[in-house]
Structure formats: structure tokens, C-alpha cells
């Protein structure tokens, strides 16, 4: 067991760091949160720079245009990009981390040849049409219907939580193609071009005040059967294949930000005064900050265990669920602590006075989504109890 990087891993890191040093300097100013035209241009520009430098699709196999990096190199990539304050994947998230890997595993040669380059270069933005108003944690109960009509599927229904639905070019979509079989067996996976007749995309305003997500309505939308990936009614398995691509790296960028934010909190506490003393003079607060920082460091060590596991076996295993659950809870505690420290300065979502309070407040709001998105904490607990501890299913 060790936590040291090999000479090859160090070489990868320093080459990347050198490139980032010049690349970041040439990046334009980050656009406003709700200026989606500018955000799309910005994310695409960054992806193109990665592509030109050979870092696009860092974990994709080389034969499909990726870098073929190991899980450890992927971890280093995320560490270095975060350290350099480089943009995160942004709107390329679904394409690079979900749709692309699924296409690599399950698509036809023609589908791959057309779609993979567009994802790698940042030319095509993808969104995800999985969840529905009545199919959240119970995703397989989805009912958005695709009826066969000659060489087309005709889609009717609704999707929700479609990230970047209003900027995307393509949607990876799960549809019901058979209602007369058990729910997991009547689902198909489709590539759906956005903007087709009969599609209505409505941005959904979250409690953060921004519009990353959309609702998408389908009224007699026609999609060629050739856009299906995998066999008809085999879409659930195709989706599970996507999930198996997770290598323990999913939350690394965010995790590193939280670790930095927790340490910033100590600095903030030293600046904030009340009743003639600094907040840092409060032993209880200091202990809370110390405990949260220690737990974040431990979770970072767990990340490295998960990545090591993925490097050895190709799959992250149950450690991924453990991480997700622990991180969601810890991030919320960090946010709560920041809000208490800021007290009435936490009542603005932007910086207030001369305090860097905005990122703490924004982070606290964001943390509320962590226990819900990508499998609620309750679903994570069920998975841990049933798949790791072997407790019986409640059915």
C-alpha cells in the first residue's frame, strides 16, 4: 500500500501543469452564470484547447480518440486542472462522462464515427433525458413512450432534470418501447437530436436561481430507428454499462474545492470579529472546523482507495456509493458551519461587505442537491445495505 505517484505519473503531472500554465492565461473571462450563449462558447473553447493538446476524453480509450489515461492519471488530471483553476467540464459533462462512454461500449461503428469526435472537440453538447416527473429514484418505471412507425420511433411524454437541455445538440434518452413486460425489460436507449418538431424545452429554475436543468416535452417527435443504441428493449442494460465506467473520479474536482473552502473558513474565522474577539477565538468553532477538515482529508484518502481499486480491477466497486453518501453529508455540514460563522452575512448569495461570503452561501445551497442528484442518499444507503452488507431487499 502506498500513496506515492510513480515516475511516469509525476511526468504526466508536470507536463500537464506546464501546459495548463500557458493555456489558462489565454482563457477569456468566465461568463455570467445565466448567459448560456456565452457559457456554451466558453465551455466549447476550453474543450477544443484540451482536444488540441491531447487531453480531451482523458479516460476514453485511445482508439476512440481519447487519452487512454489510467484512473490515477485521471485523478492527477483533475487535481491539476483544479489547482490551475481551469474550467471544469461544464456543458461537456454529459457527452464526455455519460453519452460518450456509452457510445464507445454499445454504439455501431457509424454512430461512433459520427458522434465521438463532436464530443471530444466540444462541437456537440449533449444532455441527458433519463428522469421523468414520475420516475426519479425508481428510474426504470419511466413512461415516456417511443412507438415504432416504419423506420422511425414516435416519442410522446416528458423528461425532467435534463441538464443543459436548452443548449444541447443531442440528448441521450431512455424511452419506453414495451409496456407489457417487467419495467426494466421494455426500455430503449436513443440518440435524439435536439430541436426536432414537437419538442418543447423549458428551463427549470432551481433554488440556486439558475437554469442548468430543463423540462423537455415530446409531442409526436419522430426519431429514426437508426438512432437507437443497443437492441430494442435492452436500454436498461446499456445504461448500467454507462454507470460501470465510473472510476472513483466523479466528484474529485468538487471535493478539492470543498477542501479548499474548509481551509478558507479558518482564515475567514480569523477575520470575523464579534464582541471584541475573533470568531476563531471560539474553541467550539475551531474544533468544528478541525473536525470537518480532518474528515475531508479522510474522504480524499478514500477517493484514492477507490481510484486504486479501479486501477486494479477496472471498476470502483461499492466504494463509490460510500464516497457519494459520505461526501453529500460532509459537504452539507461544511456549508452549515460556514453559514453559522457568517451569521447575518450569510443572508446574501453574493459577497457582502468585504467578506468572500458568496462562495460559502452558494456552496451551502448547492450542497442541498448533493443528497438528491445522481442517486439520493437514501438510495445510496439501500445500495450499501443490500449490495455490500447483503441485507435482504424490501420487496
Amino acid at each position, binding site marked *: 500500500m502506498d500513496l*506515492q505517484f510513480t515516475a511516469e505519473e509525476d511526468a504526466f503531472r508536470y507536463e500537464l501543469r506546464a501546459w495548463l500554465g500557458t493555456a489558462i492565461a489565454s482563457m477569456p473571462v468566465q461568463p455570467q452564470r445565466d448567459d448560456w450563449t456565452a457559457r456554451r462558447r466558453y465551455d466549447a473553447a476550453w474543450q477544443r484547447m484540451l482536444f488540441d493538446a491531447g487531453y480531451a476524453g482523458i479516460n476514453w480509450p485511445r482508439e476512440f480518440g481519447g487519452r487512454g489515461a489510467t484512473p490515477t492519471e485521471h485523478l492527477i488530471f483533475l487535481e491539476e486542472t483544479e489547482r490551475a483553476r481551469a474550467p471544469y467540464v461544464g456543458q461537456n459533462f454529459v457527452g464526455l462522462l455519460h453519452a460518450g462512454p456509452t457510445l464507445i461500449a454499445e454504439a455501431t461503428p457509424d454512430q461512433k464515427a459520427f458522434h465521438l469526435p463532436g464530443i471530444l472537440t466540444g462541437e456537440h453538447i449533449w444532455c441527458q433525458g433519463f428522469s421523468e416527473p414520475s420516475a426519479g429514484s425508481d428510474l426504470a418505471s419511466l413512461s415516456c413512450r417511443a412507438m415504432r412507425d416504419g423506420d422511425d420511433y414516435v416519442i410522446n411524454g416528458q423528461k425532467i432534470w435534463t441538464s443543459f437541455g436548452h443548449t444541447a445538440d443531442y440528448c441521450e434518452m431512455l424511452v419506453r418501447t414495451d409496456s407489457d413486460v417487467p419495467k426494466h425489460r421494455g426500455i430503449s436507449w436513443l440518440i435524439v437530436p435536439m430541436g426536432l418538431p414537437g419538442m418543447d424545452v423549458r428551463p427549470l429554475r432551481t433554488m440556486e436561481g439558475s437554469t442548468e436543468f430543463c423540462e423537455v416535452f415530446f409531442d409526436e417527435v419522430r426519431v429514426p430507428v437508426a438512432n437507437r443504441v443497443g437492441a430494442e428493449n435492452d436500454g436498461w442494460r446499456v445504461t448500467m454499462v454507462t454507470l460501470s465506467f465510473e472510476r472513483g473520479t466523479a466528484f474529485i474536482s468538487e471535493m478539492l474545492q470543498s477542501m479548499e473552502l474548509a481551509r478558507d473558513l479558518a482564515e475567514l474565522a480569523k477575520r470575523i470579529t464579534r464582541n471584541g474577539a475573533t470568531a476563531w477565538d471560539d474553541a467550539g468553532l475551531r474544533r468544528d472546523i478541525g473536525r470537518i477538515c480532518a474528515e475531508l482529508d479522510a474522504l480524499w484518502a478514500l477517493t484514492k482507495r477507490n481510484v486504486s481499486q479501479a486501477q486494479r480491477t477496472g471498476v470502483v466497486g461499492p466504494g463509490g456509493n*460510500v464516497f457519494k453518501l459520505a461526501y453529500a453529508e460532509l459537504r452539507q455540514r461544511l456549508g452549515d458551519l460556514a453559514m453559522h460563522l457568517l451569521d447575518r452575512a450569510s443572508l446574501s448569495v453574493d459577497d457582502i461587505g468585504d467578506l468572500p461570503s458568496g462562495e460559502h452561501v452558494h456552496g451551502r445551497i448547492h450542497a442541498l442537491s448533493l443528497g438528491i442528484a445522481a442517486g439520493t442518499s437514501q438510495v445510496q444507503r439501500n445500495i450499501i*445495505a443490500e449490495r455490500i452488507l447483503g441485507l435482504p431487499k424490501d420487496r
Partner: protein
Amino acid sequence: MDFELDDDERSLQDGIRSFLAGRYPMTAVRAHEETGAAVDRDLWRALADVGVFSLRADGFGMTETALAFEELGRALANGPLVASHLAAGTTSALVGGAGDGTRIVGLVEPSEPVTVIEHLASLDDLLVVRDDGVFLVDPGSVVSTPVAHPLDALTPISVVSSLPTGEQLGGAELSASLRRDGMVLTSALQLGVCLATIDLARDYALQREQFGRPIGQFQAVKHMMADMLTKAEVTRAAVYAAAVHLDGRGDDADVAQVVRAAKVLAGDSALFCAKTCIQVHGGMGFTWEVDAQRYWKRACVLDTQFGNSDHHAAAFAAAL
């Protein structure tokens, strides 16, 4: 980077685990309690024979040692395990005979409101660790009173009224290194407590039926146990990270913080897991018979050794 056990580490850990399962099963633990919990010298020598005290003196690292101590914690092994291992030293012995188990060595850090020594009646030697140095004291010269009802029946304690100075073995540096190593080994014992309580709770949740089904089928029970496992796995990462850092195979320059993090996580998690294990057992969890209480009491003892989780959380913050 490969932060996962290699084959040698795994087989060493498996070896210690099967030795303990054969030589010190839970039936023996409970019987030991009935006979006063004095350290069993035969068992002590048997532990020495499998290398528990001399691993590092024999050239192994803190990583292997922590893996062995995880198993000792899981098996609820009693006696001054960490102290005797520290006394056996690395390059040279601090106390002769500690490594081969012929001498049982205890350790105390004078504390407030009371100074308490574990297993005093069984000790051949006592290490007194103070900020300014480490001192060797004859246990017979300590003026103390045995406690009639120790919280952990397997860990007899005595309250000290007078502690002789003893012979100085080293200065502040030795004191700091014993504390640091002691924190990691104690964390490993606490990790073992977490893992043992998860097994206990799972066995019970699968077998105990209410409302016509095993209680492990209820989400309320599942979620408690998922939280146990989650805390245990995060703790495992912290403890292994600390051990690997002490062996010079880490990536964080601030080793002291890595060690503190391990003790914070291990202290909180052992108490949480043991407490939750009792809750999963319902009424039976509150009985003397079920081992859940033994682990909870041991978790209480271990948290107080080498500084509790609150102490180290504060120390972690102070070093930020």
C-alpha cells in the same frame, strides 16, 4: 500510487485474524472477563510469537503493524497492546523483553482530572509519557487504587495518587514519536471495533425477525447499518493513510495532520458504530450477554488513549 492492500499485507492480516479466531475467540473473551481480566501471560507470549509486539523491530513497517492492530481491535484483545508494541521499539528496544512478550509493558500519560493506568496489576514495566520526555517506572512503586467497576470489564484500571519520576529513557522527541505511533495504532484498534460491530449487527439483522421478516429488511435498520459501513470505510482510508505516511510512502508533507485526522475519525466512528450496533440489537443490545456493549465500552476506552477525538480536532484546527 496503489492505496490498496498488496498480497503480502493481505496475507499478514489474514494470518493474524485466523490466529486470533483460534486462540482468542469471543467465548474466551467472555470467560476472561469472568476471571478478572488480568493479562493472560500465555496468550501474551502467543501474541508475541505471531509478531504483534515486534513487527517493527523485525523490520516491518507501520502499515503492516496497523493491519495487525486492526485485527486485535476486531477480536477485542485486551491488555496494553499498543504500549508493549511501542516498548519493543523499532531499531532498538525501549524496554527489553517487550518484543518477545516476556515483559508486559504499560503506558500512562498523566492527565486531569484523574490519572488512570490500564492493567496496572499485570504490568512488569510502565512507560510514563510526558511532554518533556519518556520515563521508565516500576509499576510496584506507583501509589494507586484499583477501580472496583471499570467501564470496560476487560480493561481494569487504577487511579494514581502518586507517580514516581522513574528513569528517563528519552526527551521530548521520543515522547512525540511514541504519541504519534500510539495514535495510529490506537486508531487501527478503533477501526477493528468498527468492523466487528458491523459484522455483529449484520448477523443479528439477518436472523432477528419482527413483523414476520428479518429486521434487516427494514430500511430504518438498513440505513443505520449503511451509515456504520460508510463511517468505517472513511475511517479505514484515514488510518491506512496515516500508517503509510509514517512509513514514508505518503504524499502529504504534514504527517502530523494525517495522524490527527486518523485519530479523530477513528474515535468518532468506533463510538458511532458500537452505539449503532447496540441500537440494531434492540433490547438484547442492552444486555451484558451480547457483545455489542463490550465493543462500545472498548471504544470509550480507546477514545481516551493518546488524546480523544475532540482534542485532536482542536489540534488539527490549531495547525491550519
